[in-house]
């Protein structure tokens, strides 16, 4: 227990993890342990529901929205897009394992051939370009709908991201980890300041959601957006909120960040698409 406090404290102060000494498995144990201790009444699977796992008042509203969630429109849209063949006659199903059903759990992964992290969205666009179609915009619209459909068919599976025995994969993981704990922006805050150190605390009238389980429920329909957005859209939003210049969607920074964050949610159910404020 003291070890994780030391690690977390050191990370927040130095802005660089001591964890290059520790393995990802150790990091995961420490990360998960910290949240299980901070929120003792929340079972691991419930972290898939984010802030609604720790706040009964907003949970009630979320459950009301989940009675008929607005992202269902996008799931339908996504299904239709998924099943519409490309101009060359091929379909998305040909690019994915199992015809593309229930495969969001394969992402993100480290592609040792390409030497980079591959996300679901990057795979969708890779499929398109491979078949002579223009790539879709990264943060919302059709790509989010496709992602929503693929997330929906993956619901119920457990997050199980693997880091292969490849220094480049480990580097990508650590790059993402560094990004998570690095201060940025005019407000000079890191992701960890809010979602680790201050998870469960209030920032004005918002309750900060715990980092554990964060990427389980993407893509996400945010009432604020009035539509569905991808994880990288949210990363950019969060960066802007601490008044930092956001990175481009599907940039190495965000891919590596997604890799690290999803790995930290191993053991939690795939829960997308989600509805949030």
């Amino acid at each position, binding site marked *: 227990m003291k070890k994780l406090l030391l690690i977390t404290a050191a990370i927040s102060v130095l802005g660089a993890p001591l964890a290059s000494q520790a393995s990802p498995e150790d990091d995961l144990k420490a990360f998960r342990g910290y949240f299980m201790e901070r929120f003792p009444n929340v079972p691991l699977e419930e972290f898939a529901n984010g802030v609604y796992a720790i706040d009964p008042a907003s949970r009630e*509203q979320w459950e*009301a*929205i989940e009675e008929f969630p607005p992202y269902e429109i996008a799931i339908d849209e996504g299904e239709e897009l998924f099943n519409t063949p490309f101009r060359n006659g091929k379909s998305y199903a040909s690019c994915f394992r199992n015809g593309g059903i229930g495969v969001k759990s394969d992402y993100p992964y480290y592609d040792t051939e390409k030497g980079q992290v591959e996300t679901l969205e990057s795979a969708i666009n890779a499929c398109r370009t491979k078949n002579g179609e223009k790539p879709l915009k990264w943060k919302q619209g059709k790509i989010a709908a496709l992602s929503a459909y693929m997330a929906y068919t993956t619901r119920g599976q457990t997050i199980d991201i693997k880091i292969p025995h490849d220094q480049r994969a480990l580097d990508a993981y650590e790059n993402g980890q560094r990004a998570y704990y690095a201060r940025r922006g005019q407000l000079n805050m890191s992701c960890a300041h809010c979602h680790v150190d201050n998870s469960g605390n209030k920032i004005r009238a*918002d309750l900060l959601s715990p980092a554990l389980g964060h990427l389980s429920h993407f893509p996400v329909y945010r009432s*604020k957006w009035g539509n569905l957005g991808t994880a990288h859209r949210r990363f950019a939003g969060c960066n802007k909120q601490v008044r930092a210049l956001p990175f481009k969607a599907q940039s190495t920074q965000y891919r590596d960040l997604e890799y690290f964050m999803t790995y930290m949610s191993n053991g939690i159910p795939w829960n997308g698409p989600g509805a949030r404020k």
Partner: protein
Amino acid sequence: MKRRTFLKGTVASGMLSVAASAGLLTPRSVLAAWPETAFAAKSIDDALNTLLGSTTLSESGDIKIKAPEIAENGAVVPITVSTGMEAESISVFIAKNPSPLACSFALGGSTQGFVSTRVKMGETSDLIAIVKSGGKLYSAKKTIKVTIGGCGG
């Protein structure tokens, strides 16, 4: 198939006693044009007069408003208005909105006094539910807080 299931909490379900009568909305209600003036009205009284022809309200404990104390996001506030009275209509006003009348529901004879929807609130305000029953107007209200979040929400 993969719909979320929740552990059911305690939900108060009132015993609704709605007589199953003819079940038809009168042709007058059906053909009535969309109440443009009522929706444009800037005061609750003007909206009430135009929509329901009166501002005489009786507070009723038999109208339940299920709504959050603090709205997570003012753009999407889930609300449910229910009553055990035999209701001809249920109307919802949000006092501090630019135009207080948010929505109105004309109910058929076999339709229960129950509507659930999601509304927009610009700021902390009273939500007022008006039930028309037996030609009279009954009201209930609930204050819903709308806040400024720290995360840009």
